[in-house]
Each structure stands twice: as structure tokens, then as C-alpha cells.
């Protein structure tokens, strides 16, 4: 019974042990009153990687640093900064890695070209097949 109780308590516990006692930053979990600005901020937050929980975006993460990043992004959007400017500011600090948005950097050209190449290859194969079926 005691084990079960401990297990149930563990289920509802807030996993914040290694984080800070400070309340979240003012705009971490509060929307910008202007809906258009909030949309912009939200779209950006969904494509910025959390530095603490590395497979989550800062929009999804409960880490305190992600909260601070959300707050800072909202504050900067409210101050009139463009989302892409904030993104490049972050990239200049943490590298391309911090952004989920794919870029057109030369190293990614093969990746962008791959679908076209594969489609071309498929069409070539298909043409071969059709020709063969027509000939006999």
C-alpha cells in the first residue's frame, strides 16, 4: 500500500528538482495580448531547439532555460523585432543546431536535390519498363 502511494505521488510530482526556485520569467507562459504578435512568437518558438531538453522545441519544454528563452522571444517581438532576426541572433550564439528550420546552406544541397534525383531515377526505370512491355 505504501509503495503504491509512493508510486502515485511520484506520478503527480513536478520534475523540477535540478532547476531553480525562481518563478518563471514574466512572458514565459503568458501570451502577448496582440494576437498577431503572439502568432509570430509562437511560430518562432516552435522552431527553436531547447538547450536543456535537446529533442524538444522551447515551446514544448518545461526547462527553466526554455522558459527564459520564450520570455525573451516574446519581449523582443513586442519590441518590434522580426522573428528571423531573433533566429539569426540565436544561431550566431549556438550555431545552426539551435534552429529546427532547415536552411539552404551548401552542405544541405544534396539533401534538397535528393527528391528530384530519386524522382528522375524512378521515371527512368518506369520508361524502361513501359518500353519493354510494348516491344514483344
Amino acid at each position, binding site marked *: 500500500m505504501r509503495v503504491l502511494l509512493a508510486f502515485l505521488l511520484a506520478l503527480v510530482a513536478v520534475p523540477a528538482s535540478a532547476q531553480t526556485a525562481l518563478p518563471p520569467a514574466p512572458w514565459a507562459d503568458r501570451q502577448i495580448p496582440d494576437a498577431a504578435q503572439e502568432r509570430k512568437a509562437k511560430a518562432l518558438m516552435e522552431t527553436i531547439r531547447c538547450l536543456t531538453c535537446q529533442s524538444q522545441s522551447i515551446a514544448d519544454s518545461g526547462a527553466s532555460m526554455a522558459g527564459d528563452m520564450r520570455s525573451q522571444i516574446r519581449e523582443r517581438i513586442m519590441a518590434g523585432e522580426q522573428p528571423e532576426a531573433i533566429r539569426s541572433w540565436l544561431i550566431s550564439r*549556438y550555431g545552426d543546431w539551435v534552429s529546427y528550420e532547415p536552411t539552404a546552406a551548401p552542405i544541405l544541397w544534396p539533401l534538397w536535390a535528393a527528391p528530384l534525383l530519386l524522382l528522375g531515377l524512378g521515371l527512368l526505370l518506369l520508361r524502361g519498363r513501359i518500353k519493354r512491355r510494348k516491344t514483344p
Partner: protein
Amino acid sequence: MRKLWIWLPLALFLAFIGLFASGLFQPDDRIIHSRLVGQPLPAFTLPAGASDRPALASASLANGKPRLLNIFASWCVPCAAEAPQLMALKQAGVEIDAIAIRDARPDVDGFLKRYGNPYARIGLDARSAVQMALGSSGVPETFVIDGQGRIAYQHIGDIRADDVPMILDRLRDAQ
């Protein structure tokens, strides 16, 4: 020619297996290095983080002498673990400034009372804003700042006892 073509899918398949296997067995590197290493420290001004130490501004970090900028927090366990190493560095004549992340002054005071205070100046970064400006992604981290205020090196994680000579070397190189 045709015979060779038949092997192509298998070859591709094996190439992919090899690619995935190498990715699977490679040790996972989750450390994010700051892109600002080699560049000037971004400008910042922070309020005092402890009651018996002055506040910290980036301008005062470029005074001709290389120094350490330690990113720590009173709530961070590895920061307590690296405290003896920072003390040893201070005793070796290194000037250490600090930024306390997401912290409150009474908590920092308590932390320093318990683990010792190797810091000359302490800034309080309650919203991690300066941490982000530095490209730092966690606590503890230690930056070597050269005499011109440029970031010469970033040490991620706590400084272990066997890291101390390396840090001293980095400080000497940053002269």
C-alpha cells in the same frame, strides 16, 4: 552491365546499414559550444549577485589581464563540486568573476558561505539573458577572457581537479 545494376539496391541497402550503425555506435556528443569563442564578449551590465561583492559589467572585463568568467547558480549541484577547484585557481592568482543564473541574492549568499567565495565580482542574471547572449547553454560553464575582453576559451561543465593545469595554460595563452 545489366548484371551489375542488379546489385545496386543491395549495395545501397548495405551502405545505409553502415551509416546507421556508425551513427548508433558513435558516442553521443550533446555539448553545445558557444559560437562566440574567439570573439569579443557581448556587452552587458548586471546587478550585484551577492551582498558583499560588486556588480559585473562587460566593460570591466577588458582590463589587460586575462581572467575567468564563471557561470554558476546556487541551485546547481556540479557548481558546488567545482568550488574547491575555483578556490585553487584563485589561490594561483587568477581573477575570477561570475554570473549567477536564475538566482536570488540571499541564495547566492548562502551558497558562497557554504562553499567559499573565489569571485571578485558577481553579476545576477535572473532571466538567463546574458547567458543566452554568451551562447552558454547550462551551468556551470567557465569562459577564459583575454586582456582585450575577447572570449579565448569555453569550458563546459564543472572544472575537475585535473582540469586546473589546462585552465592555467589557457589563461597564459590568453595573455
